[in-house]
Structure formats: structure tokens, C-alpha cells
């Protein structure tokens, strides 16, 4: 790996960061959620987080099972509500690092309003949103991210709803750090998650993650090799995307269709809820 990070081995991760009694994971074979865990642990290792002072919060879904595997404080909450619980943890004890794992359904479907307002308040929370285009845990129903025409058990004739772009939304809401990466290669996600954790303020890292069992099965991508390849082929770096949009040939532009932009969407600074609250307390405390 070309990053120059001193990457812990899987065996080391197992002993330092994992609840080994929880393994093997519940994830299907070929599922990319395990990779999200990998990358997060490597990022944590890079940042040098103290797991004694880090809380992992999640909602309900395959992806929301991740905190259970990490040997740290974990709060596996109700479906869609991870950010509400996480806000409570962070507001009550701003010294803790709070990292949220959520799914596209959990975080942007039922939980969309908490996403919206947590970003608005700019809570200092890092959200790792696993987008697999579908509700995996319940067996493959359409999600707000399901592509146009995508097949799921509740869109048996193809999805007619416009899919949601969570990163564009977060960006419009002013989230200080927003990035999207497919899990298919490790380097950028690891770096990006580390940046998100370091960012003072809300950070969203959307991980495009293959779900062969549900999304793959209904969309001709059940074979692992195929679905993992799809994620490489269907994603385009923001810079390249913009270059093509500006200077590309019509054919090149046509080829962007249906693909997804990846990269860092936003990286700015903004006062956090916790800092502002602390300032308020300093001002009015008796």
C-alpha cells in the first residue's frame, strides 16, 4: 500500500480493536460492510484515537451492526435514530469522540431529518454512511438511494423514484466535511475517514458498498466479482467528472450517465454546536 501509513495487520486489529467473540460477522459473503470496518479501524489507528474515549453509534440495518464488532463503547439504537442518540452523547460529553455507522436507509431514509438537523447544528460527529442502494437487513426493499429503474423486492418492475444524493445534500446543508468512496480500494477511504474524525464539526463519509445478496441479486450483480467490478467502473473522481463535463467529448460526457461522483465534496470550517454551547455557558453560568 502506497500511503506510507504504518498499517496494523489484521491480526493486530483483531486483538487491539475487535470483540473477537462477535466474529464471524453476520455479513454475507461478498458484502463490503466488513471492509468499511477495516478501513475505519485503520483510520482510527492512524488518528491515534483512544478507544476508551470513543463511542460508536448506529441505527438498525446490516451496516448498523458495525459497532458491535468494535471493542469500545457502542450504542446500537433504533432504526434511523443514530444521529439523535449520538447528538445526546456528544452534547452531554463533548470530550468524547463520536463516530456513527449508518446505512442509506437508516441514515437518509427514515433518519433523514436527524441527518438534516445534526448537520445544521454542526455537531462534531463523524458519520460513516454505508450506501448499498437498498435495504439489506430486511431482504432487499427499495431505499431512497436505489437508482432509477433499479430492481428490489418492492420495485419489482423497476424503481420510479429519483434517487437521493446524500453528499450533495450534506454539502448544501453546510457540513464541513463530505466525501464519498467505494469500498473497492482501501487507501482513499482510510485517509478520508481519518480526515473526517479529525475535522472539528460534522463529517460525512459515504461508502459505496456492494450488497450482492440483495441489491446484487435483483440487479444482475449477484456474483461477487461482478458487483465489485461494477463499483470500480461506475465511479468517477470529482475532478475527472468536472473535467469531462467541461472539456470532455460528447461521448465522454455520455459515459458519465448513471455513474457516481466520488471524492471529497466539501472540506471547510464552521463553528460547532458544542463550542457554541460552551461559549454560552461561559457567558451565563452563575
Amino acid at each position, binding site marked *: 500500500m502506497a500511503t506510507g501509513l504504518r498499517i496494523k*495487520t*489484521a491480526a493486530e486489529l483483531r*486483538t487491539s480493536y475487535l470483540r473477537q467473540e462477535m466474529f464471524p*460477522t453476520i455479513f454475507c459473503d*461478498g458484502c*463490503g460492510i466488513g*471492509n468499511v470496518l*477495516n478501513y475505519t479501524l485503520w483510520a482510527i489507528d492512524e488518528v491515534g484515537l483512544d478507544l476508551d474515549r470513543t463511542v460508536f453509534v448506529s441505527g438498525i440495518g446490516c451496516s448498523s451492526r458495525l459497532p458491535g464488532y468494535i471493542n469500545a463503547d457502542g450504542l446500537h439504537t433504533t432504526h434511523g435514530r443514530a444521529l439523535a442518540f449520538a447528538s445526546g452523547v456528544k452534547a452531554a460529553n463533548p470530550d468524547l469522540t463520536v463516530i456513527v455507522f449508518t446505512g442509506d436507509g437508516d441514515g437518509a431514509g427514515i433518519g433523514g431529518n436527524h441527518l438534516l438537523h445534526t448537520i445544521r447544528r454542526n455537531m462534531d460527529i463523524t458519520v460513516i454512511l454505508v450506501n448499498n442502494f437498498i435495504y439489506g437487513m430486511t431482504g432487499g426493499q427499495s431505499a431512497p438511494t436505489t437508482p432509477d429503474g433499479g430492481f428490489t423486492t418492492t420495485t419489482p418492475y423497476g424503481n420510479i423514484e429519483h434517487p437521493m444524493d446524500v453528499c450533495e445534500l450534506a454539502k448544501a446543508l453546510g457540513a464541513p466535511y463530505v466525501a464519498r468512496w467505494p469500498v473497492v480500494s482501501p487507501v482513499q477511504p482510510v485517509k478520508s475517514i481519518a480526515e473526517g474524525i479529525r475535522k472539528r464539526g460534522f463529517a460525512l463519509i459515504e461508502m459505496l458498498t456492494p450488497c450482492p445478496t440483495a441489491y446484487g441479486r435483483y440487479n444482475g450483480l449477484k456474483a461477487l466479482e461482478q458487483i465489485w467490478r461494477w463499483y470500480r467502473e461506475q465511479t468517477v473522481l470529482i475532478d475527472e467528472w468536472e473535467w469531462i463535463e467541461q472539456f470532455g467529448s460528447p461521448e465522454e460526457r455520455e459515459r458519465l450517465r448513471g455513474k457516481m461522483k466520488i471524492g471529497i465534496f466539501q472540506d471547510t470550517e464552521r463553528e460547532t454546536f458544542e463550542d457554541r454551547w460552551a461559549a454560552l455557558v461561559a457567558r451565563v453560568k452563575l
Partner: protein
Amino acid sequence: MHTIQIDERWCKGCALCVIYCPTRALEVAARFSPRGVHPPELVRVERCNGCRLCELLCPDFAITVTEESRVHA
């Protein structure tokens, strides 16, 4: 020279490691693991360059690549 350790209790036989190994050093074993899957095997030891991609990509923390010279805790 590198070797890989596979934790067969954790390996789900997804074969990601085999697929993504840049030197094609791994293969899927014919035998079944106790979980009932075919685990990977380092069949072409000489090819493995220790890039650790299989380890980084294994969703189940089941592979650890080790160098002869180095022992992990």
C-alpha cells in the same frame, strides 16, 4: 518470503482475496472449511510480494500476511 495466515473460523470463502491478489498468488481450495466454505490458499508462495491487499480487503479480518523476518503480536 511471505506467508498468509487464514483464520478459518472467520473466513467466509468470499474469495475477494483471491480475486484481487495482484500477483494471482492465491487460489480457492478444493476442500471445505469447518464453516462449509472453500477457503483461500497461498498456492504460489513465490509470487506473493507482501502487498497486503488481500489483508486490507478481507472483510472478515481473516487474512494476515506475514513476512518471515517479522512476527506479529
